[in-house]
């Protein structure tokens, strides 16, 4: 497309089929202890990580 670039594809719906195992980290523990953001967390389930294509996560690994 000329006028629009896809930064990331739809992903929310897919996780419904695989999600909810509950083994992931509780969000407040990870860094801040005063606020909560979950979107930057990773899924603890390896299978889901592959399904969700986590290898491409630019923001975590770029330039490193």
């Amino acid at each position, binding site marked *: *497309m*000329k*006028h*629009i*670039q*896809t*930064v*990331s*594809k*739809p*992903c*929310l*719906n897919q*996780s*419904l089929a*695989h*999600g*909810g*195992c*509950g*083994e*992931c*980290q*509780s*969000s*407040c*523990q*990870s*860094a*801040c*202890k*005063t*606020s*909560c*953001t*979950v*979107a*930057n*967390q*990773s*899924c*603890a389930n390896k299978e*889901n*990580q592959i*399904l*969700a*294509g*986590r290898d*491409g*996560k*630019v*923001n*975590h690994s*770029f*330039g*490193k």
Partner: protein
Amino acid sequence: MIHLFEALGKRMALDVGSGAVLSLDPIAYDALRLLVEDADANVEDALSATYDRAEVEETVAELRQLMEMGYLNTNDDYSHVEAADTGVVKAMCLLVAHDCNLRCKYCFADTGEYHMKSRTMLSAETGRKALDWLVAHSGNRTNLEVDFFGGEPLMNFGVIKEVVAYGRELEKKHGKVFKFTTTTNAVLLNDEMMDFLNAEMDNVVISIDGRREVHDRMRPTPNGKGSYDLIIDKAKRFVEKRGQQRYYLRGTFTGYNLDFGNDVLHLADMGFEQLSIEPVVTDEKCPYAIKESDLPTVYDEYERLGHEYIRYRRDGKWFNFFHFMVDLTGGPCLKKRLTGCGSGNEYVAVTADGDIYPCHQFVGREGMQMGSVLDGSFDRDIQHAFQQNNVLKKDKCSQCWARFYCSGGCAANAHAFNGDIGKPYEMECRLEQKRLECAMAIYAIEQEQQQAAQADE
């Protein structure tokens, strides 16, 4: 729902229902804005005065195609999704020391006392009971988190060691894995402690606010001196010993340093790679509060930091800023996104006296005690109330574009400012939304850089 925004010079759209993120040129941005306001708008007519008509038509065709592909304007009603009410607790904040060796002015824990007017230390026995309690309430969850917190936990280092050793015994007996973490101001950190923490802790959070003068102003010792020089070299050594992994430097910015980007960059310049600097949460009347009138300045500072962040990372000075991290390719599952921090439900705090609270910030608040690990009591009604308080059940959040990223904000702040865990604190929302916009723009810009670099190869 579609959220259109501009951040770091990028025009972007988030499709809330699908999680798709798009980067738009000016025509597409203006066209989509018209379509968001009115799906039947005659975009061609409306924009042909500003742009070439053929270009506008081409753009609208692209937008329509994205809608058909399920990238835009998708169904965002997930109200049928229920996060299971299992009653399981999997994470605990253990207050090992209700005392501190610093007198930070913004401390929510009242330098360890938690408004309970006593400076007590956790005993190894109560610590062991807390772990027993956690195992007993963890159902079939394997991974259990325990964060040693205070006050200053290293003031009670011996007990931390005993509790960890006990946890390792329990792992074998019950088939669990304890992920221990510690949050410390690093004042007492010595080589023995460093080695222990590096061997046993999954994550370590060290509190540093940034530049010396900024840090010292808010984080003095009991005799009123600054603490920056006491900790900075220790923190550096510790992080190097740890191989730059699984830690965060965690600072607070206040109304005194609205140029907090310089504090982040100061720490990056010192060679730290995992950084989190967060806004102070306090009464507007407080002299160091971040006021509503400060918000434009804070937004600008996040933008400026965003640009610097990209530059640093591109030029070989990689670091990670917690609030600019967003995983758009997958990230946590939807159920996790609905439940957020899990306070009071999957996550509790336990005081040195063995009392259970929904999280560390609720400790000492009236009516919030949930039970005790000493007698095993646990108020399932409070737990259920927290479990029910998911992002889609909150009026404000259910209408908010950020809901699947923010997950409903901090229940403790909602309770403190609005007297209701279901009513998020507005200042927090506005900052969260701005950071998310920046994070998505950064993601898009770095992705472009990466694609350009690949194309060059």
